[in-house]
């Protein structure tokens, strides 16, 4: 490659020594793009502090993003009067924790079996699991409602097991159908593949069972994959609303997203909508803020390899 000295002069300073003096212009595009991504949420949060009439008026100008006018936390107190928000939050946290927790176990085992073990039917199993990625939940919701209402369950009443029918109106109907996840299995399988096979073989020679290899070798080496899957399965469960509307009738078992529906009355109280949506969004943002470094680096090292 024939190179002109000019191209080196251009590329060099941005990458090398004298960057201190020239670093601030690099923030300009970063800040510009940041504004694009943050403004709707800024609008949500600012609106949650304003009375309804002002929200509807401010939405026509940049006042929508500014803490101007009559600010108060009235909307928040109204929200807690209208909706059992803390109860909903507890339900959601519980359901999300269950789905993520069991999902990590079930899907990582499947990912292990599909990536590191040789067995007949593996190819077909992998194809079927990947094919399920194309089924959006909404399209099978109706048969699913009918079906979960017919499923049996064992309940312990005074320590005596009794067989009951129907999963509606429970926590389990919000949890169990979402534990197995093709995308998670895929990510685990990809990550496990990158761990050297020799480790397994050495352990086999030492007499370790395959299950021991999974538990003692593969899992401890796969922290980033577990972190990635945890975050990616956390989000859809936190945000699910169609399914709970259909299968959860008791107010005491409803998750946070159903609470949004409470505010669309004859006269929608927009301030309260904004306060409630802030209430259910901010925990996720904080969670992400705390774990974002781990998340990005874990995806990076989980090395998404097609």
């Amino acid at each position: 490659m024939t190179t002109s000295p000019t191209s080196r002069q251009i590329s060099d300073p941005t990458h090398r020594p004298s960057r201190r003096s020239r670093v601030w212009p690099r923030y300009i595009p970063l800040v510009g793009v940041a504004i694009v991504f943050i403004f709707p949420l800024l609008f949500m949060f600012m609106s949650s502090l304003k009375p309804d009439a002002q929200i509807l008026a401010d939405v026509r100008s940049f006042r929508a993003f500014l803490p101007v006018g009559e600010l108060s936390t009235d909307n928040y107190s109204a929200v807690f009067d209208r909706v059992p928000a803390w109860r909903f939050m507890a339900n959601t946290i519980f359901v999300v924790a269950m789905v993520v927790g069991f999902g990590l176990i079930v899907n990582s085992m499947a990912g292990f079996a599909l990536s590191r073990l040789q067995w007949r039917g593996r190819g077909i199993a992998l194809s079927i699991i990947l094919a399920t990625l194309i089924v959006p939940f909404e399209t099978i919701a109706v048969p699913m409602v009918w079906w979960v209402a017919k499923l049996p369950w064992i309940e312990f009443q005074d320590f005596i097991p009794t067989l009951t029918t129907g999963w509606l109106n429970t926590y389990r109907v919000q949890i169990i159908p979402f534990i197995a996840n093709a995308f998670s299995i895929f990510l685990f399988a990809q990550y496990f593949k990158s761990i050297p096979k020799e480790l397994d073989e050495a352990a086999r020679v030492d007499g370790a069972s395959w299950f021991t290899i999974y538990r003692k070798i593969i899992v401890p080496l796969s922290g980033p994959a577990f972190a990635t899957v945890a975050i990616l399965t956390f989000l859809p469960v936190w945000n699910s609303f169609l399914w709970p509307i259909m299968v959860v009738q008791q107010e005491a078992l409803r998750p946070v997203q159903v609470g949004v529906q409470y505010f669309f009355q004859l006269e929608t109280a927009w301030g309260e909508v904004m306060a409630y949506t802030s209430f259910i969004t901010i925990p996720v943002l904080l969670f992400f803020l705390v774990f974002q470094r781990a998340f990005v680096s874990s995806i990076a090292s989980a090395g998404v390899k097609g």
Partner: protein
Amino acid sequence: MLTAIRPHRPASTEERTGWVMVAPAAILFALFLITPVILTLILSVTNVRLISPNPPSFQGVDNFVRAFTADPTFLASLRNTLIFAVVIVPLQGGLGLGLALLINQKIRGINAFRTIYFVPVVTSMVVLSMLWKFIYQADGLLNSLISTVTFGALSGTDWLNNTSTALPAIIAMSAWAGVGFHMVIWLSGLQTIPESLYEAADLDGCSPWQKFAFVTWPGLRPTFVFVLVTITIAAFSLFIQPLVMTNGGPLNATVTIVLHAVNTGFSKQQTGYAAAISLIFFLLVLVVSLIQRRLTKED
């Protein structure tokens, strides 16, 4: 002797362990994905209604014929879904890569920016759609931005209520909402490219563009496949944005296949027909996925 025994014994425990470890996931899939899909398959050839005292009857391919011959909304949903997918895949994929390149620098506070770009990804799509409905409305934020920036020379339209802008508005909003995720994926791909390759390119005196074309892009190939497949599948399932922002209007401009299936199955209670629409959808996505797989595997 040794060679005769060795492949035998381990293979059988390996076989058994394989089945056992995949079993929990397999059972859950069988119960909560495959069964409903089979039910959908059966429903699609019947006239089952959500609420009806009549016994269901077998209709053969009637539902499928109806979709393609007597249901203009279905045809519109097919068209919109394809347009959406064809536009958003390169748009969101490309913007994601652009952001990843932008964010892949070692300067102070870069993590904060990375987090901000990711914020829409972690926010509920229902909430985002509601917010954008405000932004897009005739006297909303977008239009006041347009007239401010152009000093009143230009004024925007009623974005979501105009047949020629409604779908583009939903596309733009969806790309905005999802791009952070693919930025992180691209970023992870970028970080797997060894620094030594860039140093070698520097020594050869490559321009930044040449470095991108000959080092970065080839190194991103596996990431590219992953991004392509995930955006495509998500694109076909488009549902919440039109549900909240337009309900498929105006004049079917934003109706999508999944939205149409849900409306048909729930509001109109035509379970059998909705199942047929879902089935057509599965086949479409399957075919597109297989084509993508083939295309990306060949080179």
